[in-house]
C-alpha cells in the first residue's frame, strides 16, 4: 500500500492552467476525495497521479519515491473509470482475471486471486456468468474486481458512480466505503457530488478553477469552510450568505446590519470597512418573534421531520432548516436568530473566511 504525496503540482494546456500549485499528502490506507465542479482540475490532478498526464511543474511521490516521470504501467496504481468497459465475450471470472493473465501469472495462482477478490466484493456466485447478464451494480463490482485483483498500491477513481441514479448511488457509496475498510487500500476519489465526498472520504480537497480551496476532514470543511466557494459547494441546502458593509477589529463579538446587531464568534483580525458576508448554515437559524433580523417567508418545503423555509431578508434570501412541527405561513414576517458560535464571516471581495475564535485553529488560505 502507499502514501501519495503531491508537491507544487501544476499543469497548463497552452494558455490554460488546469491545475495550479497543488500540495497535499494522502496517508497510506486513507480515502481521499478530490471534490469540485466540472473543469476545476480534479480529473487532471488524478490523471497526473496515475501517470496518464505529465505535469508542467512539480513532483509526485509514491511511498517517498519520485514517480513524476514514470510511465503509468510502472506506478502500480489501478484506475477505475466512470464507464466500465467489460469484455463481453468473457465470463466474469475471465474479466476479473484478465490483468493477471497479461502479467503472465500461473493459472492456479490467478484463480486463487480472482476467487479472493470475488469474495471481498461478494460476487463469488457470479463468476461463471456472462457479463451481459449483469445488473448495473454487478457490472460495477466486476470492474472494481478487475482493478483490485492486481493488488495495486492505490486506487484512483474518476466519478465511478456518476452514471447511476440517486438511490443506487447512495447504496454504492456505502459499499465502496465498506470495501475500502476491508482492504484498506489508499484511494483517491474524484467527484463533483458533495454527498459522495462527505459520506465516503477521510479527507476532502475542494477544488475550484485549478486551485485547492481547502483540505480537511469532512466535518471541518462543513463547519469551517475556508471560502465562500467551499461554503456554497458543501451542504444541501448550502450555507446562506447575508451581505452587509462593515469594518472589523480584533475582539469584536458582534456585527451590525443596518437594522440589527448579530452576535458572532470573537474576531481575530482587523478588516477595513467594506462588503462582508455572514455565513449561516440552514440548521443554525431559528425563528423568534422579537429577533431584530427580520424577513418575509417566501416558501416552506415539507421534508418529513424537517422543513426548509425560505425567507427574504434585507441581506438576501436565506433558507432555514426547521422542525416540521413549526407552523409557517407564506408571506408572514418573522424574526431570525442565528447560533452565534457556528457562524462564518467572509470578505465579500476575496471570498476568503475571516479569522475568528472558531476559525483560529482552522487551516487557513
Amino acid at each position: 500500500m502507499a502514501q501519495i504525496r503531491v508537491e507544487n503540482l501544476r499543469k497548463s494546456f497552452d494558455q490554460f492552467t488546469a491545475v495550479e500549485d497543488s500540495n497535499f499528502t494522502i496517508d497510506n490506507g486513507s480515502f481521499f476525495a478530490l471534490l469540485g465542479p466540472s473543469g476545476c482540475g480534479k480529473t487532471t490532478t488524478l490523471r497526473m497521479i496515475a501517470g496518464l498526464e505529465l505535469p508542467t511543474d512539480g513532483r509526485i511521490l509514491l511511498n517517498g519515491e519520485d514517480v513524476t516521470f514514470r510511465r503509468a504501467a510502472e506506478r502500480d496504481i489501478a484506475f477505475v473509470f466512470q464507464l466500465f468497459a467489460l469484455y463481453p465475450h468473457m465470463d466474469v471470472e475471465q474479466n476479473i482475471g484478465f490483468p493477471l493473465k497479461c502479467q503472465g501469472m500461473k493459472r492456479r495462482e490467478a484463480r486463487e486471486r480472482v476467487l479472493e477478490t470475488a469474495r471481498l466484493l461478494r460476487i463469488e456466485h457470479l463468476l461463471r456468468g456472462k457479463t451481459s447478464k449483469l445488473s448495473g451494480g454487478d457490472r460495477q463490482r466486476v470492474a472494481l474486481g478487475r482493478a483490485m485483483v492486481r493488488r495495486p498500491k492505490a486506487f484512483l477513481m474518476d466519478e465511478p458512480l456518476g452514471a447511476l441514479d440517486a438511490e443506487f448511488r447512495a447504496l454504492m457509496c456505502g459499499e465502496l466505503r465498506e470495501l475500502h475498510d476491508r482492504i484498506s487500500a489508499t484511494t483517491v476519489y474524484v467527484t463533483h457530488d458533495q454527498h459522495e465526498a462527505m459520506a465516503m472520504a477521510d479527507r476532502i480537497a475542494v477544488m475550484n478553477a485549478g486551485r485547492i480551496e481547502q483540505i480537511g476532514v469532512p466535518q471541518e470543511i462543513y463547519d469551517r469552510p475556508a471560502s465562500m466557494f467551499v461554503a456554497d459547494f458543501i451542504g444541501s441546502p448550502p450555507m446562506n450568505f447575508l451581505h452587509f458593509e462593515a469594518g472589523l477589529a480584533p475582539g469584536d463579538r458582534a456585527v451590525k446590519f443596518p437594522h440589527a446587531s448579530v452576535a458572532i464568534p470573537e474576531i481575530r483580525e482587523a478588516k477595513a470597512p467594506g462588503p462582508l458576508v455572514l455565513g449561516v448554515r440552514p440548521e443554525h437559524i431559528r425563528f423568534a418573534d422579537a429577533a431584530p433580523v427580520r424577513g418575509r417567508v417566501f416558501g416552506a418545503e415539507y421534508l418529513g421531520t424537517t422543513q426548509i423555509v425560505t425567507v427574504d431578508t434585507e441581506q438576501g434570501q436565506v433558507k432555514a432548516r426547521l422542525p416540521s412541527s413549526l407552523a409557517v405561513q407564506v408571506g408572514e414576517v418573522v424574526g431570525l436568530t442565528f447560533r452565534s458560535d457556528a457562524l462564518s464571516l467572509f470578505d465579500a471581495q476575496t471570498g476568503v473566511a475571516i479569522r475568528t475564535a472558531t476559525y483560529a485553529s482552522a487551516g487557513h488560505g
Partner: protein
Amino acid sequence: MAEVTLRQVSKRFGPIEAVRDLSFAIDNGEFVVLLGPSGAGKTTTLRLITGLERPDSGSISIDGRDVTQDPPGTRDIAFVFQQYSLYPHLSVYDNLAFPLRSPARRVPEATIRKRVEQTAELLHIAGKLGNKATRLSGGEMQRVAIGRALVRDPSIYLMDEPLSSLDAKLRAELRLELKRIQVELGATILYVTHDQVEAMTMASRIGVIKDGELLQLGTPREIYENPNSRYVASRLGTPQINFLPASLIPEIAVPPATEVVGIRTEHLQIAATDGGGIVGRVHRIEHLGDQNHVHLEYRGQMLITLADPHQPLQANQDVGLKLIDPLFFDAAGRRIAATVH
C-alpha cells in the same frame, strides 16, 4: 380553474393493467402530486384525463361535466412535458404566444401581449422575451415551457415530471417557484413524479400509486406520519425507513398481529448503554455535514439513523437504542394502529 374527478377508471394495454379502478378528485386550486415508480400508471392517468387515452371503464369529469367521451381538444387542459419542446426558430415571446394564436381561439393581439408579459413576469423571464428559444439555459427553457401552459387559463394543468431533466440546484429553485406560481394563480395542478422530494415539498395532497393502483391519498404530512402500508412508508423519507421483524425486538410492546416494525430515523435514538434495553453496534458513520448517518447492526439486521455530527461515536462501538413511537405492520404489510398504553 376547476375540479377534476375520476371515478373507477381502468385502462389496460393488452395484458397489462396500466390503471386499475382509480378514483380520486382534485379540488379547485389544489396541487395534487401522483408519486410512483416508472410503470406505476402515472403518465397513463394524465393521458386519460387529457383524452389521449380512453378508459376501458369508469368516468372522468371536469368542473362537474362528464368528459369521458369528449375529444382532447375540447377538454380545456394544459400539458407540460418532461422534455421542453420549444419552437427553436421562434423567440421566447412567440413561443409563449403560440398557444393563444391558435385559429380556434381568435385572441386579439393586445390581449396576447398582456398575457405573455404577465406570464413572463411571473416566471422571471421578462428580460428574455426577445431571445431566441435556443439561446436560453436549461432552466429558462423549462420556465418557457411551463409559461406556455400558463398563458392559457385552462381548467387544469397536467405536468409530467417537468423538472426531471434539470440539475439538482435548478430543480430545487424551480420547485419553490412552481409552488409560488400555483398559489399566486390559484391554479389546479395534477403533477406526476417519481421524486419524493418534489411530492413532499409542492403537493397539497400526494397520491401514492403503484402497479396502477392508488394506495393512499393525503397531505404530505399524513402520508409521511401515517402511511397505511409498508410500501407507502418506504416511499417517503430519506434515508428510507428501517424495517425490523417484530420477533427480533421482544423487549418492545407491539399491538397484536404485528409482524414488522417500521422505524424512521426519528423513531430511533442512540442512547447510553445502561445494561437494560436493546443494544446495537455502530457499523459505519457517514457525514452529511448538518447530521451524521449512523449505520447500526442489530441482531444481524442493518439499521440507519441520524445523529448530531459532534456526538462522539465510533465504528464497532456498542450503543443503546431507544425506539420512540415506531410504526407497526401486519404480515400483509398493512399498517396497524399503535395501541394506547
